[in-house]
């Protein structure tokens, strides 16, 4: 998302069309496209089975989508909504990350304990890496040197050298890691653990754990406070953390790791995406089947938008460029 935003900022700012948020609906086999100006769904696209991971190419010319139960990554034209072609992805692709080279997708194959690396140009698998059970969280360092896969049942972050596509380190995290992100400066890796209820922060150079964040929401049992997806603001200020069935987003200070606030959103909040200038945050709420729009400055929810069944991932698309 950082890359997306950075690139979007470079685009010229003529305003023919409004920017969009694309949401994958896991149990509807569709994508809902939200117009950021009107905060309404303007298009619903039919895609492959069980769509989850969703991300744009750096120039936003195509969308990549994990169609998990179709065992493929679909490449979609965002203007027409048509599926252009499919990429080999290994079985049950759940989540992926696009390398800064804009060429290599690192894909978690949930059922096979494998990370698959696909070249989007040649449309070929260039490597498959054995990782732990149920790989899910995927990240790549800003310099592109390291790719991360977290595995849910093995409870590890696997550090993959992107030159050799070999694992070079494994670090234990708490139960059921779900999502991983590097800080913009590449110095820290953050990993959320859904059942453990924590986010672990690693020093990238040494892979040593340098911090751990726990969450506490009044009136919600701690077992139900389950960090899953999260996103960092590029100004280095906040990290927004989806807390699953507690129906809240935590606002964390990116520097001090202090939890600043909790924002009530829809049920079983999962992932999220910012708009162009990070003034609005869009969260996918799986069980309630909607998206909550959060005002980032006020840290308040401003609107709920109905989407398909079990919205999973979200991605930003600038359109007025």
């Amino acid at each position, binding site marked *: 998302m950082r890359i997306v935003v950075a690139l979007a900022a470079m685009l010229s700012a003529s305003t023919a069309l409004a920017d969009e948020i694309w949401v994958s609906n896991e149990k509807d086999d569709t994508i809902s496209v939200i117009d950021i100006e009107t905060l309404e769904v303007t298009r619903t696209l039919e895609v492959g089975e069980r769509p989850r991971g969703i991300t744009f190419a750096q120039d936003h010319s195509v969308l990549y989508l994990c169609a998990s139960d179709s065992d493929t990554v679909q490449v979609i034209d965002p203007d027409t909504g048509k599926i252009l072609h499919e990429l080999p992805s290994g079985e049950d692709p759940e989540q992926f990350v696009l390398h800064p080279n804009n060429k290599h997708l690192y894909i978690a194959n*949930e059922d096979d304990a494998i990370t698959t690396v696909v070249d989007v140009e040649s449309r070929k698998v260039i490597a498959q890496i054995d990782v732990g*059970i*149920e790989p899910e969280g995927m990240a790549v360092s800003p310099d592109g040197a390291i790719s991360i896969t977290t595995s849910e049942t093995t409870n590890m972050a696997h550090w993959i050298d992107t030159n050799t596509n070999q694992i070079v380190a494994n670090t234990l995290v708490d*139960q059921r890691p779900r999502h991983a992100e590097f800080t913009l400066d590449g110095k820290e890796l953050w990993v959320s653990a859904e059942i453990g209820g924590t986010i672990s922060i690693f020093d990238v150079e040494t892979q040593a754990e340098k911090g751990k964040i726990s969450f506490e929401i009044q009136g919600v049992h701690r077992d139900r406070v389950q960090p899953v997806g999260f996103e960092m603001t590029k100004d280095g200020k906040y990290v927004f953390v989806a807390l699953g069935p507690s129906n809240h987003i935590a606002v964390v200070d990116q520097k001090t790791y202090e939890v600043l606030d909790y924002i009530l959103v829809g049920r079983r909040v999962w992932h999220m995406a910012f708009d162009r200038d990070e003034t609005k945050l869009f969260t996918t709420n799986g069980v309630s089947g909607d998206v909550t729009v959060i005002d980032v400055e006020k840290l308040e929810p401003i609107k709920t938008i109905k989407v398909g069944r079990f919205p999973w991932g979200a991605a930003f698309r600038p359109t007025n460029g």
Partner: protein
Amino acid sequence: MMLRLLSLCFLTSILIVNAAAQQKKLDIPIAYLEIRQPLPPTLSNLDEIPEDVGLQGAELAIKDNNTTGKFLGQTYSLEPVVLEEGSAGLDEARKLLEASSVLLVNANASQLQDIAQLPEAENAILFNVASRDVSLRDDACLINVFHTIPSRAMLADAISQFAVKKRWADWVLIEGALEGDKAFAAAIEKSAKKFRINLSEKKEWVFDADMRRNAAQEVPLFTQDFPDHDVLIIADEANDFARYVLYNTWLPRPIAGSEGIVPSAWSASVEQHGAAQLQSRFEELAGRKMRSIDYAAWAAIRSIGEAVTRTQSDQTGQLRDYMLSDKFQLAGFKGRPLTFRNWNGQLRQPIPLTHPGAVVALAPLDGFLHQFNELDTLGIDQPESQCEKFGGAQ
């Protein structure tokens, strides 16, 4: 060029750290002892019970542990022994305990008791993966036995919570003639009291006719003289007759217990909280659906795996202490971390209430609060525990 050099240095440092982390190699042999139980004759031939219930769950957990272990230099192996009905299993248990200090027992309560009291088992960790017997967790508990299968008390409390939530406050009960049916019925009666449910009448199932032909005639008559009720509970662990009662009762009422809404450790209809992944991994391995005893065996070996991974130890004392500590958590695909009760070694776990097509509810239900852990609203809680021997962490 500069950048490339920098990143090379960086990678070298990673490799060194990684090598250090992998230095401690551990081999963890885990034993599995099953004593086949005589199956009571049942009216229906529809459900064949697979021969490898429990064992396949253990095998899957060994695979799971090894996938994690390969990154840490830990290797897990399973030594399974399956004995015919009527064996005591004591010699086999002794032999297994010579080679392994972790033993899963898939047997009945009294067989488990005998095995756990062998001198060879004194410093071992045993897991009860099959017996739902309440007293094994209570007055008859033992220091070296953990339980990953839920007790009948936990199962009954799950039904009660659901009934309270639905305001199904009036119950009647049919119990089968077998020992397990009586024990389940007793747990249901106790649970009804605990949750202030009015259980107005209990009847024993006495028919010996073949229900495949006669359910439609006999069940309405059998249930006709029950006082009015919100739900009919059936305790029939082998599902001998319960299946024929469903939809054939005098009054149109929901059924729960051994038929209808069924509480269990695990069911084929559990899919939320990542369970679909466990289901598909299991099915790929076993060629069938995962059952409760499979799940209990899986959870036992995964618990040991977690303890070994986090402590980097193969010493049973350390593993036991870790499993009973606040640090231990098992992600068991039921939406909450699973932990062990340190007063009786029972694995705390949500109980799905299911029918063959879906999960109806997951206990503990919302609103059943607890001072420490909502999962302790299911089964024997610490203040009422009669277990003296388990003794918590050493």
